[in-house]
């Protein structure tokens, strides 16, 4: 009799705890979480089959706004993905690289060094910039290592259980519903359609005096911030230890007086990177080769628009294929279907963007239900 009572109690308590744990887990995964284009991009990355990506691009917003994996596949046949989050930190870059190695171990890793070129370490301390990466990495040894080394003791629990931080987000509803549904649909689909790409339908027009022409001949250097240089060397040491095929790629920004020091720091970073035996492609010197038109190809000072993306993807794709020997991927049928669909979706997105830019409608486009639904009516044939 007593035994029966104990068993009933254990079963009831287990059911109750399971219901609570599952509910909390759903809340943390979808409903009470800071979902944005970063989370959808990384969620899509983790849906890619292990070791199926040839090239991973690591960095901040310059990466996911300048390069289209769908277009690159369409033109060059290799698979790629941007493991990139808005204003990624230097410490975050190291963790992200370890994640890339853990999950994909790609043939080539392109790293945008922007996180190491700041004059100070303020970006390293900005919680939103840290969380845009760390919150979107599943719990594993890399994430634990990051939290243990970089987060204040009394904040650690909130990094392990982000629900503690974000539980108050119920107030924001219904606004986050779009991204919640987008994430759930991406999980159901099991793949990313736009492969992390994000853009804004605009053409940048500013009175700020741009001085990009000077960059080509600029040989001056400025020291990196000490702490950031230490992190860059830590990253490079890891690359050497892991024998990674890494190339640093400085994406082309619009440079003006206020940001010109970054060019000199980029030159210093190039020296350091080369010192470890890695290539440093400074594309800020290659505007002409890429074919960037300052009047049409940016949507703001630091980010290319869809026209710039096409030029940049073509240029970089060529280098990846010809200089680094990354050829066509050998894919299974389902993988092929996945990537062909991504290529077609980018064709549709291009036409949609083109139309919006011509109509002067400025909106941000990313892999959400609104964008995916809007691009459906456009042709998926190659636009070039």
């Amino acid at each position: 009799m007593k035994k029966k009572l104990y068993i009933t109690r254990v079963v009831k308590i287990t059911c109750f705890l399971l219901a609570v744990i599952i509910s909390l887990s759903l809340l943390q995964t979808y409903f009470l979480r800071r979902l944005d284009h970063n989370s959808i991009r990384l969620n899509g990355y983790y849906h890619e089959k292990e070791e199926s990506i040839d090239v991973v691009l690591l960095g901040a917003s310059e990466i996911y706004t300048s390069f289209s994996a769908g277009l690159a596949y369409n033109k060059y046949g290799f698979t790629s993905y941007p493991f990139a989050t808005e204003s990624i930190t230097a410490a975050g870059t190291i963790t992200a690289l370890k994640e890339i190695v853990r999950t994909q171990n790609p043939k080539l890793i392109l790293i945008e060094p922007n996180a190491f070129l700041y004059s100070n370490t303020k970006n390293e301390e900005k919680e939103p910039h840290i969380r845009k990466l760390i919150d979107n990495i599943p719990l594993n040894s890399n994430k634990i290592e990051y939290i243990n080394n970089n987060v204040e003791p009394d904040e650690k629990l909130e990094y392990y259980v982000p629900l503690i931080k974000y539980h108050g987000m119920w107030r924001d509803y219904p606004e986050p519903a779009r991204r919640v549904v987008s994430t759930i649909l991406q999980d159901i689909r099991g793949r990313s359609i736009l492969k992390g790409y994000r853009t804004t339908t605009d053409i940048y027009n500013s009175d700020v005096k741009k001085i990009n022409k000077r960059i080509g001949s600029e040989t001056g250097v400025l020291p990196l911030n000490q702490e950031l240089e230490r992190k860059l060397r830590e990253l490079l040491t890891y690359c050497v230890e892991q024998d990674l095929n890494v190339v640093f790629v400085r994406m082309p920004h619009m440079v003006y007086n206020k940001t010109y020091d970054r060019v000199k720091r980029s030159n210093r970073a190039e020296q350091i990177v080369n010192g470890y035996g890695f290539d440093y492609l400074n594309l800020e010197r290659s505007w002409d080769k890429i074919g960037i038109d300052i009047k049409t190809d940016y949507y703001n000072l630091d980010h290319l628009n869809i026209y710039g993306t096409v030029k940049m993807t073509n240029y970089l794709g060529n280098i990846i294929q010809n200089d680094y020997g990354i050829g066509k991927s050998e894919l299974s049928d389902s993988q092929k279907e996945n990537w062909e669909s991504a290529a077609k979706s980018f064709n549709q997105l291009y036409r949609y963007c083109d139309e919006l830019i011509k109509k002067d409608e400025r909106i941000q486009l990313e892999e959400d239900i609104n964008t995916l639904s809007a691009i459906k009516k456009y042709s998926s044939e190659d636009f070039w």
Partner: protein
Amino acid sequence: MLFNISYTTFNFIFFVLATMLVYFLFPVKKYKWTVLLAASMFFYAVAGYKFAAFILITSVSTYFIALWLEKMTASSKKLLKEKKKEWSREEKKKYKNRLKVQKRLVMTLALVINFGILAFLKYYNFFAGSLNDIMGNFGFDFSAPTLKLFLPLGISFYTFQSMGYIIDVYREKTETQKNPLKLLLFVSFFPQIVQGPISIYDQLAHQLYEPHDFDFTRVKHGMELILWGFAKKLIIADRAVIAISAVQDDYGSYNGTTLTFIILLYALQLYADFSGGIDISRGVAQILGIDMIDNFKRPYFSKSINEYWRRWHISLGAWLKNYLFYPIAMSNVFLTASKKMKGTRFGKTAAGAHISKVLPTSVASLIVFLVVGIWHGSDWKYVAFGVWNGMIIMLSILLQPVFDLIIAKLHIRRESWWYSLFQMFRTFIVVLVGYVFDVAPSFGDGMNTIGKFFSNQNFSTALSQIETLGLWKKDYFVILLGAVTILIASIIQERHKDTNLRTMLDKKPFILRFALLYLGIMAVVIFGIYGSGYSAADFVYMQF
């Protein structure tokens, strides 16, 4: 604080779980109480290690003075027994009186040491400031220095509790605790140290020292009580306090309607905060097999202010009644004054007879509530709060025949539901007026607020002001929903006074219990104010 271990942190939950585990698995039953002592010491060390000396002074002084009192009692009994035949009745009486004076002196020593520490730390700056103001007003160039003083965690609670024990030993109502560590546990038991309840030695101590085995129902009920406490504290109190603090930060700029709303919100916040905290304390104790007294019995259903104080902060009320009210009301001074009044011409009239009869209790009430006011804080506004409550109680006692007459003339049936409702409403209004002095930054602001209630009402201005208090409309909706839930639970409990909601819940179908507990947990997780996104307010009563 070494690290944050306050009730609304995960550290506290882990700490309670660890204590539970060690306590129930502790192999030597006889010494299970040492687990509670170790846990209490750990809690105090973490939460208030800088001031641990104060709780030790209280414990040590209480321990030795209680032993001293007991020794005096024992030796006097022995002496009286020896001299039973030798001494005359007169001599015995004389000896007893002398002994009583000596014991009272010893007890007073304990009271002076411990209330002295409390008074100095809590009230020195208040009195120094007030003295400086008064001297300044009279043109004297005098300035008592103000000191940077901090209040040790739970000092009011453990001081009152220890002194209650000393008075009980003095009155020979309780046995003296011979083991200093056991007494230290009684003084510092961690679930009650933050905000009470103020327990009586005979009610609590033996429960602390007895070993308790794991009892599923007790653990379940304890956890349910903790959940209910968290819901009140995190969902309602800590949400409401955001708006209340916003008003307190710029008190002068709000109109009468906004202030009325804030006072109402404060009534809810204070109840949710204090009773929520007590529920957590009682729940933790219940899990460990210990029943602490209930500090609240739905106070806003009270039909008189007297009843309100029997339902609100019951343990403080009981302490003051036992150790302050009765000694004053039954003192020779008041009894003699009452007798003298009875003998006068006025005392022979109906009104005079009534007044002379109730004079000791009414004046004692006023004094007790003056102490209640001062206990709440070192500010004139708290004195006003106490005096307001004391005055109302004193007047209600003195004017009782007049009220009886009015009720009789108007043919009001006391047992009718609408009269009960009127009484509750009337009492609530009186309580709210008292709260004005709690919320207002100063006594003067409190008086201005009362003025604004009558002269500065504007609904549309209030609506726009309320929008700026740091809460969303959705937050106010959550507060309203929480208040309705408390109201429903209170009504059910009020109708079933012989049991409690958790026992009633046990009799309901499993699926209903499952759903209610599930919703409770989800509500706390989703709607609770915690985490770095918010700064959960400290428990209001922690400051006392």
